[in-house]
């Protein structure tokens, strides 16, 4: 998984909780590189899962809430880090419909061997159905990201998780008008 997810995770914990909680999380996770991540590197996603697991221990908050919150925070960071990806898009629906193509194209250009999740958005009447599928269990992070994009564009939309969908590896979200 791309290093940016790891470095931003530590950054988020430092910002949201404190540098010492971030430090504690890293130390307790007993990571091979002792929590040294660079956004241009790649690392096993299990290390991110280990860190979130420790954060659950430290904060006592549910893992899904934490993952969703991280995703939400990450969406704003992406807007800061990669403004060119957001350029040309005026609303969340439009952006979400394009995201799978953009994501794959941008990642593939820099990291030809990267395995990217599939995020497919389809219009269903007035709703937008966004399907997430990945070999990594980050469906909640995806939920937070979508939520973040809606707020970024300031759209009057709400995201609902389709409860019929299986779990962290695959999920379907319904984006609809409030």
């Amino acid at each position, binding site marked *: 998984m791309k290093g940016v997810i790891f470095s931003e995770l530590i950054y988020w914990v430092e910002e949201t909780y404190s540098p010492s909680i971030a*430090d504690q999380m890293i130390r307790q996770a007993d990571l091979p590189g002792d929590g040294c991540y*660079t956004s*241009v590197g790649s690392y096993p996603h299990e290390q991110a899962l280990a860190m979130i697991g420790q954060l659950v221990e430290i904060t006592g908050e549910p893992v899904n809430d934490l993952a969703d919150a991280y995703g939400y925070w990450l969406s704003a960071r992406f807007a800061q880090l990669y403004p060119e990806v957001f350029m040309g898009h005026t609303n969340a629906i439009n952006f979400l419909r394009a995201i799978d193509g953009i994501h794959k194209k941008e990642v593939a250009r820099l990291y030809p061997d990267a395995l990217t999740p599939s995020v497919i958005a389809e219009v269903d009447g007035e709703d937008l159905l966004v399907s997430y599928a990945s070999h990594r269990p980050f469906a909640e992070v995806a939920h937070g990201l979508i939520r973040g994009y809606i707020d970024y564009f300031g759209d009057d939309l709400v995201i609902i998780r389709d409860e019929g969908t299986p779990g962290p590896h695959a999920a379907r979200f319904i984006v609809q008008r409030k």
Partner: protein
Amino acid sequence: MDGTGWDAAAAMTAEEMEAELALVRRRLARSESARKQAEALLEFKSRVLAQANEELKENRERLRIELGQRTRQLLEAQRVAGFGTMIWDAEAFKAELSPHCQDLLGLHGLAEIEGAKTADSPHPILDRVSPEEREKVFEWSRRLTTGALQLKHNRVALMQAGAGRTCKADDCRTCEHLADCDRMLEFRIVGRNAGEANRMIRALAETSVDEDIGRVLVFITVQDITREIEAANEAEALHQRDQRRMRELEQLAVELRAAREAAERANAAKTRFLAMMSHDIRTPMNGVIGMLELFDAAGLSESQHEMLGLMRASGDQLRMLLDDIIDLEQAESGKLTLAAFPLEVGTFLSTSIGFWTRAARGKGLTLELERAAFGWRGSLVEWIVADRYRLRQIIDNLVSNAVKFTKRGGIRVRVGPIAEDRFRFEVIDTGIGIPPERRAEIFEDFGQLHTVDVQAGGSGLGLAICRRIVDLMGGTIGVEAGPEGVGSCFWVELPFVEVDGPTAAKQRDERRLLRFDGGRLRVLVAEDVETNRIVARGMLSKLGCDVELVTNGEEAVEALRRDAFDVVLMDMSMPVLDGPEATRRIKALPGAVSRTPIIALTAYSGRAELAPMMTAGAIGVVKKPIVLDELYRAIKSVCR
């Protein structure tokens, strides 16, 4: 830093401070470690990039070399094939010229040129085109440009219409436009320098869309066709010359024919004159000879007796000469005719040859008649249909010549069949012989060899008359050297029709006779060739028919108007009125006569050739040469 921070720091215990410091150190260490990771990664990526860049450069260089090679090969191929290429970009209004194209158009070093705006404006290509063709070349290029732009326009319109349609001939007017515009143009490039010759150029244009650059380009191949044109002109000149020669030859042939006809007319006139004279001379001649016969030889001295003998011999010779001249005239004017009567071969031959025995013996020569087989198994038939007088004339001529020209030795006459319906007789002597180069001409009129003429006497017309009689009989006559190169062998081959002799006729099978309503069958034969008529008559007589002969279709129709016949044998091709037309007329005659069965008599064997007769109304066919059985069957089938 605000007061709170200071307060907080101040409130920290040393232990807490220590922990805080350790935390900061760890964070710094992580940052440092991450930076080093990033740098290492960056360096690695840089190396990968540099390597990729190297590979790219190498690839580009390889492609550049390959492109250069291909381009050189293409240009070389163009040079070898003798054509250049020009790529006309109608939008850019520019053309790219291959080196050989530049050479052909006399534009050395001009690889790119702009289009011409008018036919008159200065332009590198138009300036080289012969002045009278400038307008034509300009108009051609203008139409190609318009066509290409229109094609582009249509494609854009189609793309905008969506659905990923591509240009098709059906919906692209440009294609039609280009089809209308002749894709080929020929023009002359005028040599500019003294040493530079004019040359004929053929340009061929093909418009195509370059999808990679999204442009419509016109590809024009340019070819030097000067030699081709020269060759065509040369061929045309040769053809004209041949035509002229042909006309001259035809003219010559016409003149020759006219000259020959004039000579023939003159010759005929001469022969007629001679015949007339001979006829007129013969009357007083008969008087002279008759008187000489009556002259009483008694009381004459020996020398007077000798003189009288000479006078009689000269008289006979003169009469023979006159007869020959009259025969020849008859043959030439087509009046020579053949009679046809049954003839017993054996008796006829022994009598004819025997007549000359005395003369031969008188010269100390032998004269023998022998039957020969000539390689044919059958034996000579006993009775044939023939003209006894003319046949005798041939034999007399050949045998008398042999006796005349032979001093020592003897004469052999050999007779025998050479086919079912042909016989040959040879007169072989041991005389002076005839040089090979003169063998053909002795059968021509007055063709007797001059050298012997004086000694031997004679009109020189005998062999010419023989040839004419043999021709009339449908045979051939010739001469070759005698056996072992001594003397001559004169030979004659003649067709014959076998008939039953008077004795055999009595015994012939009654069933073979054709009868109609109990009586003798009346047959009308229309046939222009006399031999055929004789043959037909001979056979029909043998079949017990009464026969009437006519020589053309008109006479046949007339005969039927006059008289009734049981069957008509009608030759297909005859002068005056041919078989098919005569058949039609007979069929159109009023009354029962129109129902007279008509049998086609023909030498043709194909269905197509027979069709006119059958369409006209003939109901049977008898092929020539006529075979008795076939004739019998044909008549039997139509007169049932």
